[in-house]
């Protein structure tokens, strides 16, 4: 717990640039001289951020220290592999035009969802996320069948074919969506947390969003409200380095997202998202705070292997960068951990892969065979009442 306490040694001085200098000051080439000039002639000084935030590096945690059983660790491995195989197959089905619309794949980020699922009380705690939602849905225990059927737009889908890839929901698993408008679901997460506190049910809310959402105002409003109202919420930035095609340094004046917590007076930390155990540990700590109605901010450093969506040509990054990142693959890391810890041998893990592949294949068959929604279902669930559109 102590490690989470933010040490504020910040001497934050508001930077007040003269208008005429702002343009030059913001370009790299002349920044140095502009700042020097500022320091010479003004009482206004550049920001001096010397805040340190705790971090959760990869490879630092043993599952037993985290209170996880061997089965849980094998479960983490299983769900990561299931997500990977599920999405690979989904990608193929998209190419075969079985899936329409957008398809945002999570491959590379599986440790985030797997570590999260291991840290929370599923069915008590709530999760809300953005449109890259297949991974967390499967990690929370939603079936590959209902998820694949939803991608296919079928009536057995987790949202009855009304939501699609971006809008997975499960009341049972307390997945409050799958949301397509970047950042807009984060205030909703605040409300979910508000209700947990209001009802006193002990639950907390995990609100996931990408680095691209950090610039959205609603997130900041939500953090401010959470701080004021002491809401049991964790704001979780899944930083996969690209907002669609825009690298974080191109989108933000300041890329140390943990520093955002300072403005709202909430704790923050950063975790290596390629290690599910590190993610689990970080979340355990943050959840403990949330249960005491202390909202917080967690930045998970992760990486997506595929494009923003299936149609993304990925011109914004090099193949070398991608290959380098893939060397730190979360599934390979977990496989090594399992074998190193003697939880299972290679053959056993191969069997896991075989069964996962089967499970995914079956999910495709299930989705294929599921019915398309009846046309009259178009009016269903617009309102609570069943007689919509009310007037024939």
């Amino acid at each position, binding site marked *: 717990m102590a490690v989470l306490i933010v040490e504020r040694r910040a001497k934050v001085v508001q930077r007040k640039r003269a208008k005429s200098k702002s343009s030059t000051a913001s370009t790299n080439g002349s920044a140095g001289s502009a700042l020097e000039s500022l320091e010479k002639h003004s009482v206004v000084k550049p920001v001096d951020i010397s805040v340190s935030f705790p971090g959760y590096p990869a490879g630092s945690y043993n599952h037993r220290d985290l209170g996880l059983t061997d089965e849980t660790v094998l479960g983490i491995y299983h769900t990561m592999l299931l997500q990977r195989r599920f999405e690979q197959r989904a990608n193929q089905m998209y190419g075969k035009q079985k899936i329409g619309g957008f398809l945002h794949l999570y491959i590379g980020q599986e440790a985030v969802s797997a570590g999260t699922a291991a840290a929370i009380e599923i069915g008590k705690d*709530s999760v*809300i996320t953005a449109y890259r939602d297949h991974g967390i849905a499967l990690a929370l225990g939603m079936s590959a069948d209902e998820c694949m059927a939803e991608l296919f737009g079928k009536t057995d*889908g*987790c*949202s*009855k*074919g*009304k*939501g699609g890839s971006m*809008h997975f*929901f*499960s*009341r049972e698993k307390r997945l*409050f*969506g*799958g*949301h397509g*408008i970047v950042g*807009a*679901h*984060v*205030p*909703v*997460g*605040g*409300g*979910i*947390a*508000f*209700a*947990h506190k*209001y*009802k006193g049910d002990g639950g907390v*809310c995990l609100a996931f969003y990408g680095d691209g959402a950090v610039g959205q*105002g*609603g997130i*900041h*409003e*939500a953090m*401010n*409200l959470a701080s*004021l*109202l002491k809401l049991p919420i964790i704001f979780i930035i899944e930083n996969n380095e690209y907002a669609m095609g825009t690298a974080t340094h191109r989108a933000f004046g300041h890329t140390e997202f943990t520093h955002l917590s300072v403005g709202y007076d909430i704790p923050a930390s950063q975790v290596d998202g390629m290690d599910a155990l590190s993610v689990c540990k970080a979340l355990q700590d943050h959840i403990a705070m949330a249960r005491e109605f202390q909202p917080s901010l967690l930045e998970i450093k992760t990486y997506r292997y595929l494009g923003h969506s299936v149609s993304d040509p990925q011109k914004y990054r090099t193949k070398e960068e991608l290959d380098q990142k893939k060397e730190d693959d979360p599934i390979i890391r977990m496989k090594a951990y399992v074998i190193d810890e003697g939880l299972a041998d290679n053959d056993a893990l191969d069997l896991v892969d075989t069964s996962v592949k089967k499970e995914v294949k079956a999910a495709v068959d299930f989705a294929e065979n599921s019915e398309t929604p009846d046309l009259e279902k178009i009016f*269903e*669930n*617009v*309102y*609570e*009442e069943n007689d919509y559109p*009310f*007037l024939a």
Partner: protein
Amino acid sequence: MAVLQFREALRAAMTEEMERDDTIFLMGEEVAQYNGAYKVSEGMLDQFGPERVIDTPISESGFSGLGVGAAMNGLRPIIEFMTWNFSFVAIDQILNNAAKIRYMSGGQFKVPIVFRGANGAAGQLAATHNTSVESIYATVPGLKVVAPSNPDDAKGLLKASIRDDNPVVFLESEVLYGMKGEVSDDKDYIIPIGKARIAREGKDITIVAHGNVYWRAMNVADRLVEAGYDPEVIDLRTIRPLDINTVTESVRKTNRCVIMDESNPFASISSEVAYQIQERVFDHLDSPVIRVTAKDTPAPFAKNLMDHYMPSEEDAYQACLRAMYVT
């Protein structure tokens, strides 16, 4: 029955419902310590405490979204916008999240929430503070839109809105807050959403209006009566679902219709009502449906321009005469 101001009727509705159901809470700017920017929530902090009557910072997007999440997670929030003009920074929360989550989740999550506040023109406040938002929100399936014109309707409809399991956009009027009227003191006084009221029966022409402009419509009707005509006036009360049957039944009788609407005319409630009239009772129309609306401009500041901007009683009166072919 008690004589209450419009704002007191709203307060009575909220108070009675909050006494009845612990899951209801009120949130918004200045609703608690300040007792409400328009004194609608006066005294409610004292009665219900800061856990249920909650001040927010000025962050409509944040607290609107918070309301949606709370509604998804089992509560029944009342979110007050100081005025609906300020809802536009939160519009995504209303027309995407509140309105569509039930649908997108295949019915797994309902969003029983009331967004309420002052709507429409309120004098020399210029363009950003005089918007009539009903057509903007009424266009969204999944939302209900309610616009009472008098204290009794305000109470009955707000109670109905709070009890409704759908997101409701509840439109009040700053200029009506002080209006007094007889209000039912029945703790279960519910006016069903989606029912228009025939405010005056007549046979010569149907005048349709809602909210603040309803009172202008009644003045027009009085003038028509003086001139020897027999107008029927319909107060829509609910914009969505629209009680088009009451309107069309009236037009079947009168064969003519003038719609008064404080909104800008393009793609507005008046255009929707007019469209539905021609769709449903075309063969009963003796003259084109005429609209009398705000000018198709932003609201101006200058007093004379603002007066000119509003749908005038004289214009509506002349429109009625034209519709009856008596000019």
